């Protein structure tokens, strides 16, 4: 369980990190919390010649408000998300989701930037960011740009990140006061990836769903936005028939892998249940 040899770099600025990653090309990997990459290196599934540790870059830390959005630095850890009163009050679904990631030790090290940028369909934050309509702020050799979370994921470990580009922050529109939210995740044990998980953010008006977005984790090669499922419940009171319609619409776009978490049929079935549970719990929390 000894990783292959590599050269270690700890740049002090974003510009230096981008320069290093651009110069070193495919042989270099950025290192955030390391709780996905280092296990892969120990198994020699990943053998980068260079690691560019982002932990020395102050600009990647911190959470701040920008108008009606919260901007979360890429190197903010899951533990810091859980300790943040701003997150707990303005983006409580982020708090709820972070609690379901890994275990305490993993949350001290694991970062939100690593979670969303790695492109692992098992990670929990990507589907949530798609649900919330977040934007990812990227910086690379050609400057800065912003990519919607909903356009970011292309395949397993394949994202819109270009060569030398670093995800620097996540800009999340704060949902309106009184919104309902839920992240429902079935996992086999603490620290496991989801067998299936669903995130819901909605608003209710006069007992009916006014707006709704639904995201799905680990149910395809990428996180999914279940648009038809969300449409199926808008204007309803989330009666049984509408919940079933939403679950069926969500299941129609699921294509999970058959693995230790179960065969395709089981994981799809569980996915439908997660959608219904998350919708019910979100509605119960909505004002």
């Amino acid at each position, binding site marked *: *369980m*000894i*990783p*292959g*040899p*590599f*050269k*270690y770099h*700890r740049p002090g600025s974003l510009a230096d990190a981008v320069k290093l990653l651009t110069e070193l090309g495919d042989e270099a990997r950025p*290192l955030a919390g*390391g*709780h996905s990459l*280092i*296990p892969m*290196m*120990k198994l020699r599934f990943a*053998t980068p*010649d*260079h*690691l560019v*540790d982002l*932990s020395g870059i102050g600009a990647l830390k911190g959470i701040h408000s920008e108008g009606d959005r919260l901007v979360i630095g890429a190197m903010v850890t899951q*533990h810091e998300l859980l300790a943040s009163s701003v997150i707990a009050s303005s983006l409580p679904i982020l708090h709820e989701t972070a609690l379901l990631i*890994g*275990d*305490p*030790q*993993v949350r*001290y*090290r694991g970062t939100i930037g690593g979670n969303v940028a790695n492109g692992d369909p098992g990670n929990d934050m990507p589907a949530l960011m798609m649900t919330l309509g977040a934007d990812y702020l990227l910086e690379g050799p050609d400057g800065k740009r912003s990519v919607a979370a909903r356009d970011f994921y292309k395949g397993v470990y394949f994202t819109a990140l270009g060569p030398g580009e670093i995800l620097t922050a996540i800009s999340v529109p704060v949902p309106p006061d009184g919104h309902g939210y839920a992240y429902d995740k079935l996992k086999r044990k*603490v*620290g496991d990836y989801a067998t299936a998980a669903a995130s819901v953010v909605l608003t209710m008006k006069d007992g009916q769903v006014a707006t709704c977005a639904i995201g799905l984790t680990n149910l395809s090669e990428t996180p999914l936005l279940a648009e038809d499922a969300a449409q199926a419940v808008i204007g309803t009171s989330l009666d049984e028939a509408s919940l079933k319609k939403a679950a069926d619409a969500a299941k129609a776009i699921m294509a999970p892998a058959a693995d230790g978490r179960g065969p395709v049929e089981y994981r799809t079935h569980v996915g439908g249940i997660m959608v219904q549970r998350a919708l019910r719990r979100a509605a119960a929390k909505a004002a």
Partner: protein
Amino acid sequence: MATQVKKTQVSMKVNGQPVEGLVEPRTLLIHFIREDLGFTGPHIGCETTHCGACTIDMDGMSVKSCNVFAVQADGAEITTIEGLANADGTLSALQEGFREMHGLQCGFCTPGMITRAHRLLKENPNPTEDEIRFGIAGNLCRCTGYQNIVRAIQYAAAKINGTESKEAAE
């Protein structure tokens, strides 16, 4: 492919003492602590970031040291189980709790358990049973069934809080 890599100088504070070493970048922190520094309290269990036997305290965080490179800990303040006894060498409240409440059987997970529980009680001095179970979810024990580990941590919390309130009264 394989790059010839020079060793790197690292320095950190371990159990209050400044230490230095020359490591390959790929040297895992647990190997540096056990083999170079000789602190063999933190154990190598699964080596896959699941079991928590290698847990150390690093800059105020519980960390699985099999999943951190020694170079990442350059400049860090680290505490291992060897640094958790009272200054006069007597057992800390947690160590005493694990003895009194039979919080261990084979003892392999115990250093990681106690080191994790140490940080948990620093952050939450009076945890509920659920909070304790959630807080030690990253540490596996294959003997006890956790019941007595939870009791041991409750014992330590009560003792620490009792001592503190007594001090406050004085």
